[in-house]
Each structure stands twice: as structure tokens, then as C-alpha cells.
């Protein structure tokens, strides 16, 4: 299963992912249309900056999601077919238990509807909008094993270079 994974060395904090996410979750799915629409669309990814690094954070699609366990109305569920954690807004009562238990702060509130919203992994798209929008390809949509393989190779390259420098 493919995951949204981030190469933290490449994020320049341009927030292109935030805009693309909001546009994808708008009525028109088009930048100009989204800006002009009365009710502004909401992004589900946030670029947060920490000690010398920036990171686009969205729902990590946990294998054992605390938000699902904490949801008392059964709105938050893990779709068995896709394996994705989704929120059924018809069932959501806006109690914010999910917000409290999510360690990533990935669940936000739809202020008009008073319901929880989060990254739905752009179910209808082959590649999520944030991944498509990332100009440095910091946000990847890839198999976890492929990502770790690439990371191992990178580690080896760095290791060899540092040996040569010695």
C-alpha cells in the first residue's frame, strides 16, 4: 500500500501543498474558482516549522488509529478495502475526541459544519493533490519499502563520501 511520505530535507515551506489541498476540496477544483467561492475551502495539510526544519503534516493513516478508537459516534472508521481512515460526516457530532487523541494534530474542524475533517488521501485521485503540487518532490506517494530502500542507499552514499573525505 502506498503512503504519503516526506523527505524532510527537501521541504522549503512554500505551502503549495496547502493550496493544492484546499483547491482539491473545493466545489470547482480550480484555483480561481476556489478563491471566488463564497465558503472558502479548507486544507487538510499544514506545513509546520520546527527547529530548523519544516514539514507538511497530514493524517498519517495509522494502522491502529486512535481517532477511530476514540470516536463515540462511529463516524471515524478505517475503510477495510482501501485501509484508509475516513470520517463519515453524517455521523460526526463534533465532540472533538479525535482531535484530542491524534498525536499529529492532523484532524481539524470545519468551522461552518462544526464537524471534524482530515486528509482523505484524495480518494478520487491516483496521486494525492499535495504530492502533485510539491515543487521539490519532498512529498512522495510511494510504497513504504521503496522509501526505506532509497533511504538506505542514500545512507550508504553519504557513508562512502565521509570515508573518502577521511
Amino acid at each position, binding site marked *: 500500500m502506498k503512503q504519503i511520505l516526506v523527505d524532510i530535507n527537501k521541504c522549503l515551506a*512554500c*505551502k*503549495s501543498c*496547502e*493550496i*493544492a489541498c*484546499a*483547491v482539491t476540496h473545493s466545489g470547482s477544483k480550480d*484555483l*480561481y474558482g*476556489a*478563491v*471566488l467561492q463564497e465558503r*472558502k*475551502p*479548507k*486544507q487538510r495539510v499544514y506545513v509546520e516549522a520546527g527547529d530548523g526544519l519544516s514539514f507538511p503534516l497530514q493524517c498519517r493513516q495509522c494502522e491502529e488509529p486512535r481517532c477511530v478508537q476514540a470516536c463515540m459516534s462511529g463516524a471515524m472508521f478505517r475503510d477495510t478495502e482501501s485501509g484508509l481512515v475516513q470520517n463519515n460526516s453524517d455521523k460526526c457530532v463534533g465532540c472533538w475526541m479525535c482531535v484530542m487523541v491524534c498525536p499529529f494534530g492532523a484532524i481539524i474542524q470545519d468551522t461552518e459544519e462544526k464537524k471534524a475533517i482530515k486528509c482523505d488521501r484524495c480518494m478520487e485521485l491516483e496521486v494525492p493533490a499535495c504530492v*502533485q*503540487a510539491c*515543487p521539490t518532490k519532498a512529498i512522495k506517494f510511494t510504497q513504504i519499502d521503496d522509501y526505506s530502500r532509497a533511504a538506505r542507499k542514500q545512507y550508504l552514499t553519504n557513508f562512502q563520501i565521509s570515508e573518502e573525505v577521511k
Partner: protein
Amino acid sequence: MRFANRSLDPAVRKMLGEANKDGIETVWDRFELQQPQCGFGLLGICCRNCIQGPCRIDPFGNGPQKGVCGAGADLIVARNLLRSVVGGTAAHADHAYEAAEALYLAATGKAPYEIKDEAKLKSVAAKLGIETAGKDKNELAREVAETAFADFANHGTSPMKWLTATAPQERVETWGKLGVLPRNPDREIRTAMHQTGMGVDSDPVNLILSAVKLGLVDGYGGLHLATDIQDILFGTPAPVVSEANLGVLKADHVNIVIHGHVPLLSEKIVEWAKKLADEARAAGASGIQLSGICCTGNEVLMRQGVPVANNFLAQELAITTGVVDAMVVDVQCIMPSLADISACYHTKLISTMPIAKLPGAQHIPFETDKVDETARQIVRTAIEAFKNRDPQKVNVPDEKSRVIAGFSVEAIVGALSKIDSEAPLKPLVDNIANGNVLGACAVVGCNNAKVIQDSFHVTMVKELLKNNVLVVATGCAAHALGKAGFLTPEAAEKYAGDTLKAVLTAVGNAAGLNAPLPPVLHMGSCVDNSRIGDLVSALAGYLKVAVKDLPIAASAPEYQHEKAIAIGTWAVSLGVFTHLGVVPPVLGSKQVATILTSEPVESLLGGKFYVETDPVKAAEGIIAHIKDKRAKLGI
């Protein structure tokens, strides 16, 4: 058809196939790699004017609504817009100043140009209030050049002379009341840069008024000044027959492509290409074929009949034909990638201007006093390069269309005076009044990789002509329409509505063409939008109404350059309804977008911007506007 999503031009599609095969990267490949483009930039809500930034405003209201300094979206968008207009205006004012300098040097015997058009010289001098009687052409030309210099050295509060001498009186009064009359082009450009810096102007409305002022600098200290001086130096265009598209390149000739915007050097290259034809033959070629790209191409098409190789987006593809021995560039719209592409062929890329150098190009400096030597060296460099052609790489597409260009205001009035020598504009006005000609639209501007090359121009113009709207064109828009066959008498038969066709036929026959006038009149380069301004001003004057009341419109369907934003701002200030086919970066501010496109600007200036990205709907919008103006005139 392959590459139909990139260009309407069959020659371009063909060459794209070849470029693809050879691994040549073009503007379209790079455009795809840039997708998706930054939403903050597209909306105009990114500010980089101070080093506390860059700051961005969240267009959806969740994130920051103010930059570090406190500037909100309206202010940031207005400041960025003004800086764009300043950028475009600076390009045109610099161009015009170079022309004025060349005129001065020619008049004082310090540059080898001859003053070709004494009639234009006298008419420009008369408008400027310069006494013409008893002066020889050099003396008069010197005084005209000095009047241009005086505008650029105006330390007082009086408005620019070139503006008050050439703009309609009603407009000068309107602009005066708004406090937007420019004094000195350089000073206004400087002041606007100051105004948009961190911590200066915080008022979006005040910034937009400055954009209007800069638009006027563009119109009169850029466009009008450049056209006037270039006509004096090189002649006012008259109808001329030529050809357009990559098929004008000749495999057995030395091919020199001239590209850029300022004709001071290219006029001399035309001269030296004729003089050195024997040297080309001695090198084994059948002769020298010149062709143009962008507005330098338009300048030498209008005055010398030099054919057009292609327009902005296909500049790289000209080189991939393998027969371009030299591509000579001056300033503006020259893609940096030309150096990479010419390195894959025998083509000598020659830069000529001190502010436009390309790593990888050969630099042969243009200096006004030594222009003959420069032009001769350039032609000889091309002849030398011809000997290095790689026959394996030669691939010239067949496509080319016949074009008639050269429609200066003088030429149009000249053709109309064959019908009515007393009041030449009367036949045109009468036919507008009786509805045979519904109105007129100026289709101008660039290509833009966001639009399928030429497609917006062609699709929209077809609709306009079908509805009896006469079209005039300049710039890369004119090239697009030329390549597509609209600059011919046959196009009147094919595309014009019945009543427009009848008028074009009557004028064409009276002018001795034995055929209709083309339904699209090619009026020149981008600075020659001043000619369109003069034509509408003359029509308004004849009818004793303001320009804003005429059933006319302007459109930049595929614009890309800051210059187009400056020209558009001038057009709106003149009172013209101005369509844009690509969304300008202002939608991040509701206030700015509303001011530019609706009542606020219309009530003050008479014109407004109209943004529509669909060519058929744009034509409908333009036609609706024209009909509205007709109704208000009671015709």
C-alpha cells in the same frame, strides 16, 4: 493530431515531433515541468519586497491574512500589479529613448542613419508645436529628438509633451482631474518603484491610480514616442506583401533570423544582407534569406517586407530546422534557452545589446555610430556559419501563408481617401453607423505557454469577423493571424460576415487592389499599438465623441509579458474595453480585481478590463460590449 495541445500551427506541431525525437527540450516541456504553478503567485498574494519576507496571504482565510509588515492581500496585489506595469513601461520607455537617441545622432551627423520620412517628421514636429518652416530635415529632426529628451529631463510639474501633443484633449482633461498625468517617464518609473517599497504606500486605490499614470507613460513615453521616431528614421509603413511561417526559411540560402524588438540594428541588417548577397553566393548559397520573430520581425515586415519565421513560442523551433545560420537578438522576449538549443546545431546565436547577453552566444555589440560595421559583421558571420551546415539536420517545414501588412494609420487613411478624399474617415464612420461594420477590435499581444499557441487568437477572431467586427492586429497576435491566413483578401471572403465583406471589397477596389482589404489589418509591432490609439482617437475626433463612447474593444488573448500589462493599462486609461485571455495575478484581492474589471474604473476612465479564458465567450463579451456602445450612440 500530435501536439494539438501545444500549438495550432501545423509547422510548429511538425517541428515539435522532430525536436522530441532529437531530445530537444522546448518551452512546452519546461511549462509542463513547472506544473502545478504556485497558487500564491498565480493569485498575486506573495510579497518579496522586503527581506522580512517572503510573505504570503492565505487565500482561504485559515492562515495569515497579513504580511510581517501588516500588508494585507489588497495591498500586496496592488503593489505587485504596479511593479508589473512599471516593468513593462520601463521596457518601452527604454526602447523609445534609444530610438530618440539614434534620431539625434543621425540628425547631428554622428550616426549613419538617413532620415527617411520627412512628411512624418514634419507632422510629428507640428504636433509638438515645433516651427517647421525653413528648416532642413536634420535641423528639424534634432529639435524633435531634443523635445523627446526634454520629456525625460522634465524637472517641472508640467505633463509630458509627447502625451499632451498626441492624446485626445478630452482624455488629457480626464487624466488631469484624476491627478495621473505623468511628467517625466524616468521620474514616474522611479517614483513608482519607491511607492511600492516596504513601508511607503498602503493604499491599494492610490497604487492603482499610479498604475494608470504608468500606463500613460507606457502609451506616450514608450509606444507613441518609439513609433513616431522609428517612422521618421525608417519610413512610415505602407501596405506590403510578404509571407509568414517556418516555410519562409530557405534550405539553399543563408538564413538570418532577426528577433527582439528594437529595429535600429535590424534595419541595417536588411541593408547589408542585400549588399553582401554576392558573398553568400560565393559561399555556395543561392542568396540571403532574412526572416523575423517577435516585434523586430514586425518592424522589418512592416517597412521592408521581410517575412515572418514565427512568433514568440516557436522561437526555439526555428533553430531546429537546421538552416538558421544566424539568429540575431536585440532585447525583450528572447528565451534564455536559445543558447542551449543553438549549441545543438551550427546556428550562431548573436547577442547585440549591452543589457541582453546570453552565455553561449557570440556578442557583437550594437553601437549607434558603428551600426554599419556591426550589421556587416553579423551578415558575414552568418555566411561563415552557412559553410558549417549539417545536411543531416536540415528539416524545413513547407508551411507558409501569404500576408499583407504595413497598415499604418497613414496607409489606412490613404486607402479610405480613395473613396472620399475630403473626409477619408467618413466612409468608415458611415459604415459603422449603418451597421455594415458592427465595430472594431484590436487583437494584440503575445503567445503564452498557458494557451495552445495561436488558438485563442484564431478562434476569437473567427467569431468577431463572422459578426462583422473589423479586426486590427499587432505583435505576436498579428503573426498568429498571419500564419493562419487572416491577413489576405481571401480571408475576407472566407471569414467576414456579409456586410463587413462588402465594405472591405468596396475599399479594396477603390484602393486599386481589385480585391477586398484583408479583414485583419496588420498595424505593426507592440509599440505600434500607438497606431491603434491614434486611429481610435481620430475616429472619436471625427465623430466628436470620446474614445470611451466608440463601439470598439481591445483584446490580448495570449499575453505573457509585463509590457502587455502596461499596454493594457494604457488602453483602459484611454477608455477602451480591454479583454484579457489569461487570468492576471490579481484574484487574491477582491478589491483590486473588482476595481479593475467593473464600475470603479469604468466610471473614472471609461474603459475596464474584461477577463475571459474561453475564446468564443470572449468574442461574445466583446460583441455585447460593442452593441451596448452602439445603442448608447443611438446607432
